[in-house]
């Protein structure tokens, strides 16, 4: 690593890119893509099993693969990508070297080892406990060790992000305030520290319980603290995704935030209030008092919702202002119709915004009320909600960003720009159908995490209204389309990263 302080100047943005940051961004992003590949294969098998017409897997394999799908997608794919994003947002955007690169490699190895242990435990059937691993459902102790290792690695990654901010400030590598994207990612990292702390608080005693050192672990207590990790990790995704929206708006149409004060204040609202939201998972539990529920579902949540509403205005606004400055001023919507729809980044940003807001956000806020939680709790509609937020929102935004990171940071020419663009549309259509199917079936009562919604083996006979099967079929077909889009994503990004033409040092080619 003698050349780790090598530096180049980006011909597109003029930013200084240090070799040590570049390598770490590369390894974390590439690992993320490996995990989305695993999670995607699992997604295919799970969707094909839920579809009664196909019913692919046995019950044992289904629950195993469903656990793997959840963990690989929600945690491994997204967190590896976010760590890459944090290093990009701190080192690259601030023209700085990365603080403590050796420690960053150590963090990466911890995360990788943790992830591999978790996957081995799940695939060998020793941890068929779902993503939530609710106590007293017990997994192999090694499973909890894997999760803890991964979380510690991610926590170190966050520390390196903060360290890099400090280095950049001390070495005066930028002037004035940090860029908006870095600010947003800082909010995500702050939320991440809180989240990972919850993870430590709950997984360490659970590990001790699994090896027999602790006898009783209250199941309700586990649920409360687990969701401080389980849902709060999705709040990191929300915050990182909003930062990526601003980034994509800049990369695709050269947008500039209209009012920095408003955008940044909204991120502060996320930091202050979004972490209190996870308690809505407990609305139908027999533990919390009504006052607790009412306070939690009301102002705590709505101040975070307000932040999302602000971004919902600010993001399209920055794009519109930038487009109008370019002369697309005819009527109300010329700025939108003349936008770069034939590049992956712009449609990825718009579809991500729509899927997150209209499918994920609205369902989330509705299901999060005390009474409507009774109607939706643990149904497939819930699964539809977070496939809107995390898949349609976060994953789609991250996919769009990948195509720009390849030329910008990895200095490779993107192979198959048309495929990349088509992928975004295919994925968005797939996720739309998937979430509509899940939402419809779930509203009629179809349970989540269920091998057989035809109840063929049940002692007491029961069958759903045929509409449930219709919606399930829509979801499965949507899942198939989304998996196709995901496969194209993996194909294009892997081919480009390893076989794309190396860009010349001064070649200012983005896509």
């Amino acid at each position, binding site marked *: 690593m003698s050349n780790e302080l090598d530096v180049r100047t980006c011909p597109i943005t003029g930013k200084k890119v240090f070799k040590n940051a570049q390598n770490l961004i590369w390894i974390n992003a590439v690992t993320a893509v490996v995990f989305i590949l695993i999670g995607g294969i699992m997604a295919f098998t799970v969707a094909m099993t839920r579809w009664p017409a196909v019913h692919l897997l046995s019950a044992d394999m289904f629950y195993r693969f469903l656990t793997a799908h959840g963990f690989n997608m929600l945690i491994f794919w997204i967190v590896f990508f976010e760590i890459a994003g944090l290093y990009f947002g701190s080192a690259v955007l601030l023209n700085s070297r990365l603080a403590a690169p050796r420690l960053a490699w150590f963090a990466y190895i911890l995360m990788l080892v943790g992830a591999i242990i978790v996957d081995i435990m799940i695939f060998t059937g020793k941890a*068929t406990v779902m993503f939530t691993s609710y106590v007293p459902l017990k997994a192999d102790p090694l499973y909890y060790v894997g999760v803890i290792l991964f979380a510690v690695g991610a926590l170190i990654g966050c520390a390196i992000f903060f360290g890099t901010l400090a280095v950049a400030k001390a070495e005066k590598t930028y002037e004035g305030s940090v860029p908006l994207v870095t600010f947003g990612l800082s909010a995500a990292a702050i939320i991440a520290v809180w989240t990972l702390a919850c993870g430590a608080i709950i997984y360490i005693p659970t590990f001790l319980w699994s090896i027999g050192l602790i006898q009783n672990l209250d199941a309700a207590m586990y649920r409360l603290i687990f969701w401080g990790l389980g849902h709060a990790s999705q709040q990191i995704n929300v915050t990182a995704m909003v930062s990526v929206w601003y980034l994509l708006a800049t990369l695709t149409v050269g947008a500039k935030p209209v009012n920095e004060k408003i955008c940044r204040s909204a991120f502060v609202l996320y930091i202050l209030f979004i972490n209190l939201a996870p308690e809505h998972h407990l609305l139908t539990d027999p533990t919390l008092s009504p006052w607790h529920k009412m306070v939690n579902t009301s102002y705590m949540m709505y101040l975070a919702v307000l932040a999302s509403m602000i971004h919902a205005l600010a993001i399209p606004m920055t794009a519109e202002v930038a487009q109008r400055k370019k002369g697309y001023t005819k009527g109300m919507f010329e700025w939108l119709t003349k936008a770069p729809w034939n590049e992956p980044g712009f449609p990825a940003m718009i579809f991500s915004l729509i899927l997150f807001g209209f499918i994920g956000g609205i369902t989330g806020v509705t299901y999060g009320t005390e009474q409507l939680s009774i109607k939706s709790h643990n149904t497939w509609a819930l699964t539809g909600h977070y496939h809107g937020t995390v898949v349609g929102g976060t994953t789609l935004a991250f996919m769009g960003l990948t195509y720009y990171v390849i030329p910008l940071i990895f200095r490779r020419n993107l192979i198959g720009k048309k495929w990349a663009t088509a992928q975004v549309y295919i994925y968005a259509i797939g996720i739309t159908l998937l979430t509509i199917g899940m939402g419809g079936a779930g509203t009629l009562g179809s349970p989540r995490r269920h091998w057989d919604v035809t109840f063929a083996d049940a002692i007491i006979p029961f069958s759903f209204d045929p509409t449930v099967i219709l919606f399930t079929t829509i979801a499965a077909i949507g899942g198939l389309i989304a998996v196709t889009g995901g496969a194209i994503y993996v194909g294009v990004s892997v081919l480009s990263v390893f076989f794309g033409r190396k860009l010349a040092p001064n070649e200012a080619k983005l896509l």
Partner: protein
Amino acid sequence: MSIMSPEKYWWKPADLQEKIWITIAMLWCLVLTIMMFGWHFFGTQNPSIEPLKITPENYRTVSEAFIAKYKVGEEAGIPIVAPPDGADVYLRAQMWNWTPILKLKKGVNYKFHISSVDLMHGFSLMPIVMNFQIVPGHDNILNMTPTSTGTFHILCNEFCGIGHHTMIGKIIVI
């Protein structure tokens, strides 16, 4: 550019359009905040409001006593129980059934005690779709009055092991 540092003084007043949007959003959030309390106090369908701890062993004992006292028959090996009007009703979640099958009367209020003696389960009453989390060690107390006659089914919608998808219970309202 959101990837560049902003100008030195970026703390600027919001534009009129931004102010209008934020004000409307904030007012709507305020309305919904008030509604959260309204729905609870003026609505009639709330989740459990009486937290109570009970060990799985104790819960098994009381639910067995309840079954023995009011048992009227059996279906597929699961006892059918017809409790008297206004009685405390015990519905036990276990891998993988809901015990007992309940025979209730329309228009009569029952105090349900639902708990688990092993893992976490999910109470999902079909076809009206009402769902509650059933946590071992905790009693989910619900006041319920059947408002229509017929057969209702209870699914399990929390993963509880390999037989999760076979776990179905029944409530008959006459």
